């Protein structure tokens, strides 16, 4: 009997957690419009989570582009298809690696800082103080960060892809000696703006929503102790990374399974 009770309690706890998170998300969405009216707060947050992630995103994108080009060349040359190097790099960056790797970096760079910041605000009872002053902390604290995350993520992801393609161009044309004209022409033939680039941007925006919402929820619901904030920060990275990878599979299946 105890086994069933434990199982039931566990299941109830899981559902309660999901319900709690869903309610939090709905509240967050409700706070978006009022927060948009004070766009100055959003701009400050874009600076904090977007601009400051720029260096790590650009550096990683460049490195990924370099390495992809070098590695793929070794395989493609055995099929005599070295000219399509640019196309393969471009498609893998724009469709998958750009959105996914950017989100993983974003979760580590910006998600953690969001969780820690809000967790500490809660631990320092600043959130409670805002509520006492009849200021809705969701509108004043959470929503601007959420909007900033949704705006920053697609921009960062497309920058990652662009710098990755440039990196591949440097390696392919400069180092390996593939013809620059073919490098670009084959890409233009094989990459569709709406199907590939457009879906990549949609993906990165969805990932931005997931990652930022998880970070804010973990920060907002953290236990107001140093250990609590530490756990919450870890959970932000784990949950948003796994969530984004799972979501990526679903989106890829929806977007790219039909047709060619």
């Amino acid at each position, binding site marked *: 009997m105890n086994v069933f009770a434990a199982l039931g309690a566990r299941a109830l706890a899981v559902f309660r957690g999901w319900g709690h998170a869903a309610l939090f998300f709905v509240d967050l969405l409700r706070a978006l419009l009022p927060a948009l009216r004070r766009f100055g707060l959003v701009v400050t947050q874009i600076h904090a989570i977007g601009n400051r992630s720029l260096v790590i995103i650009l550096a990683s994108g460049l490195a990924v582009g370099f390495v992809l080009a070098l590695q793929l060349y070794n395989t493609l040359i055995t099929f005599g298809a070295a000219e399509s190097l640019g196309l393969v790099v471009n498609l893998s960056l724009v469709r998958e690696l750009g959105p996914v790797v950017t989100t993983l970096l974003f979760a580590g760079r910006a998600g953690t800082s969001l969780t820690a910041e809000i967790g500490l605000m809660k631990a320092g009872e600043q959130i409670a103080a805002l509520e006492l002053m009849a200021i809705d902390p969701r509108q004043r604290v959470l929503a601007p960060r959420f909007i900033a995350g949704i705006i920053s993520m697609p*921009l960062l992801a497309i920058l990652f892809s662009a*710098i990755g393609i440039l990196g591949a161009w440097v390696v392919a044309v400069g180092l390996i000696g593939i013809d620059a004209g073919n490098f670009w022409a084959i890409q*233009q033939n094989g990459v569709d*703006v709406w199907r590939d680039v457009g879906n990549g*941007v949609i993906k990165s925006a969805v990932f931005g929503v997931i990652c930022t919402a998880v970070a804010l929820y973990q920060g907002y619901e953290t236990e107001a102790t140093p250990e609590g904030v530490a756990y919450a920060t870890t959970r932000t990275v784990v949950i948003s990374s796994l969530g984004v990878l799972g979501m990526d599979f679903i989106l890829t299946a929806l977007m790219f399974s039909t047709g060619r």
Partner: protein
Amino acid sequence: MAKRNIEILVGLFVVLGLLALVFVALKAANLTSFSNGQTYVLTARFDNIGGLKARAPVRSAGVVVGRVTSISLDPKTYQGVVTLAVDQRFQFPKDSAAKILTAGLLGDQYIGIEPGGDDANLAPDGVIAQTQSAVVLENLIGQFLTGKAADAGTAAEAPK
């Protein structure tokens, strides 16, 4: 002053991101080549489309003039019905022929349009009457082998 600096930095970040999008769209994808251009639709029926896929290029004299938009099977004639979106700038005579060709030995298949000599042009939603199906490697090998066998048969009979 610090707030103004932050606003400038954020503006730069957004502009940089949009520039990256424009770069990817224009330089590394096909926005420039007719995805938005004016096109008209043509239909061609093939006995066998081989490995032709939607979005494959339509070429005339090797120049890309359009794309394959959809492929379906006619349930009555059991022919493959291929619809093509061809750039408005290019008009083809009524008796033009459509062939399914292969780029290189093992490359992607595309549709080649060979212009005919008719004075009238194919109207939008028109049908290309003359078509040549894709070359299927197995059939080709089969023909080659039966040809060889026939040759061997006649060669054996000849000395008598």
